[in-house]
């Protein structure tokens, strides 16, 4: 089953470990960015937004459509690629935010006082709906991204770093910092934290709860949309079911960091990405997902408040 012998046979060289580490951090950044959406929404609504992974998927498709439109109308190499990429990311964010606001209004808000199962099923419904709409739109075929980044890699010794990977690494850190500042420094961010702490008191203090919840959904969706575009460029394809696995992994990351906690989700994302990448060395790549799920189950059972969070008996 496991390829334990692999280690002994080849003798793990340092470069291989570093390579795995870098790959882990790359994918971990994506998990962290998506995980923020879960954790923010859970923080204010105590609800798992099952359709969050689909926002990521919609972002990836928007990125594809935008980039191909650019490719068809102008010569890619002549125009500014930085600008086209920026436009694609912004478009992905706009589409994801619009969808998130729509789903909040139509599928979640009427159920805010319903028992907890109802919004969960409704979210599953939204997820199935979006996934299958895209399946129809794309005729069940994956869309291949136009080539934006050169396919060659930066090689440092044995370590290979794709250019798009570097871009992804930097951008995820940028978005995480941006969101952190938004939550900590802006008025809307304070409102989100207040509503997460205690919705009623926040409302008594003059905070518009509905509006704050919408802001929360929008912030999470913007990140998911942007992550979708960049991830699409990284894996070079967009498929209608691409949201599921990253969605579940990001949720795992949010739980690892203590769901509801913003820094926790970031740390959890990177932790999961690195653990997963390193685990491929021990168990083989086909058990990568099992490792992630085992980690999730283990954390929920033994430390439901998260690896990095503080114990809070209310939530478990």
């Amino acid at each position, binding site marked *: 089953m496991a390829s334990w012998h692999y280690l002994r046979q080849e003798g793990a060289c340092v470069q291989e470990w570093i390579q795995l580490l870098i790959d882990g951090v790359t994918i971990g950044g994506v998990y962290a960015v998506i995980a923020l959406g879960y954790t923010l929404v859970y923080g204010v609504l105590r609800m798992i937004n099952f359709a969050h992974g689909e926002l990521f998927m919609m972002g990836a498709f928007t990125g594809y459509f935008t980039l191909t439109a650019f490719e068809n109308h102008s010569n890619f190499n002549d125009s500014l690629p930085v600008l086209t990429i920026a436009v694609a990311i912004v478009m992905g964010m706009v589409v994801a935010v619009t969808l998130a606001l729509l789903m909040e209004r139509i599928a979640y808000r009427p*159920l805010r006082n319903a028992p907890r199962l*109802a919004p969960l099923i*409704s979210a*599953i419904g939204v997820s*199935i709906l979006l996934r*299958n709409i895209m399946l129809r739109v794309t005729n069940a075929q994956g869309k291949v991204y136009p080539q934006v980044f050169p396919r060659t890699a930066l090689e440092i010794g044995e370590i290979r770093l794709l250019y798009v990977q570097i871009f992804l690494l930097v951008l995820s850190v940028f978005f995480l910092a941006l969101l952190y500042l938004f939550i900590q420094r802006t008025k809307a961010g304070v409102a989100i934290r207040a509503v997460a702490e205690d919705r009623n008191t926040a409302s008594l203090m003059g905070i518009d709860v509905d509006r704050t919840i919408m802001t929360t959904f929008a912030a999470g969706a913007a990140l998911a949309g942007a992550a979708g575009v960049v991830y699409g460029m990284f894996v070079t394809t967009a498929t209608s079911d691409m949201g*599921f696995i990253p969605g579940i992994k990001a949720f795992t990351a949010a739980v690892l960091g203590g769901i509801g906690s913003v820094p926790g989700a970031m740390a959890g994302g990177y932790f999961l990405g690195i653990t997963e990448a390193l685990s491929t060395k021990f168990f083989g790549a086909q058990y990568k997902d099992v490792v992630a799920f085992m980690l999730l189950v283990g954390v929920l*059972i033994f430390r*439901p408040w998260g690896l990095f969070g503080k114990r809070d008996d209310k939530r478990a």
Partner: protein
Amino acid sequence: MAADALRTLATKLSPARYWQRSAEALQRTPPGALVVRYGQFVVLPLLAIAGGLGPSYFGIRWTFAILVVVMYVLLRSRSGLFGLALLASMLVYLPHQMDVFERGIMFDIALYAMLGIGLNVVVGFAGLLDLGYVAFFASGAYLYALLSAPESAGGFDVGTSFWLVLPMAMVLTALMGIALGVPVLRLRGDYLAIVTLGFGEIIRIMIRNEDGVTNGTFGVFSIPKPHFVGRELSGPVELYFVVLSGCFIAAFASERIRDSRVGRAWEAIREDEDVAAGMGVDTTVYKLLAFAIGAAIGGAGGVVYAAKQTAVFPQDFNLDVSINVLALVIIGGMGNVRGVVLGAMLLIGLPEVLRDVSVDVGFVHLTNLGADYRLVIFGAALVAVMVLRPEGLLPSTRRAAEFEQAELLEAETGV
């Protein structure tokens, strides 16, 4: 005036004993409800005739669709017995008029109804949200596949009989249910959902990757059909009746358990676990029991599924199965076996009925609406039902009351 006359007549006929309602309660009933209640004596025989003749006039699928709608109305009006009688006769009678494809659909409906009845024990009765139900279904299916298929087809070449594997699978999956239940005893709500989801995925990935045991992605094929009194149950109708019997047994057993001491313990746990424990309910034992019973029914479903398909593959057992079963339990109405059956007919049957319907309005040209867009419709329907009727189409009376209570409480405290 007419309403009053109807009321008096209804009281005179004194069906109160039958409906277990007092004459005063009957007096208070709005006339509309009375029309539905007594109208069925006229409508039902007509329907039975329509059910018999319908297929030759409307075609079998539209007959099916009409019957589902009518049944919903009947079951809603608390005339349970007649609705069930109609359901039973329809389930037994209709498949004989169907072609192979439609019989396959009837099999799927019955199978999903059975899975739904099993999951309903966990979700509806005990209130434990399980999104990994497919794990038990897959285990049952693979157990029969491996124990019956020849070695060249990925099996163990043991040739165990279907009727022997069935109890074995139920015991195995019940143990699996307990094994899943023990670590997650402390988890509630959404967390439980995610852990069970992970469990389901782990089982599927294990089946896919452990190709030394399960033949991996190639699957196991050449699974033999069961024999019954020397006769091979080969066609979809024969196996359909096997599942249907399973459904009835599971439905009967689960309703009896619900009304027993165990059922009351589940109800107490569902309402408030801490209070239940305080009142002396052994929450550990009863929660594990719910997991075990639900899992055993799922395992039995898996065995029949493997026998019908004659081949099983890891990708047959993905998350969609769990979600479908959960959705039909919740849309049908949690805690109510009849609701689950209705849910199965709606969610599994209607998309198939809609399969070759086309829409051609203005500049909208959608052909094969059901085949291509049924999952789109399914997703939208899940949202719509939750927003409009979060308690499900046909909730058990008690659950409906609980929902009202919960909403009142929440309106008061604003939690």
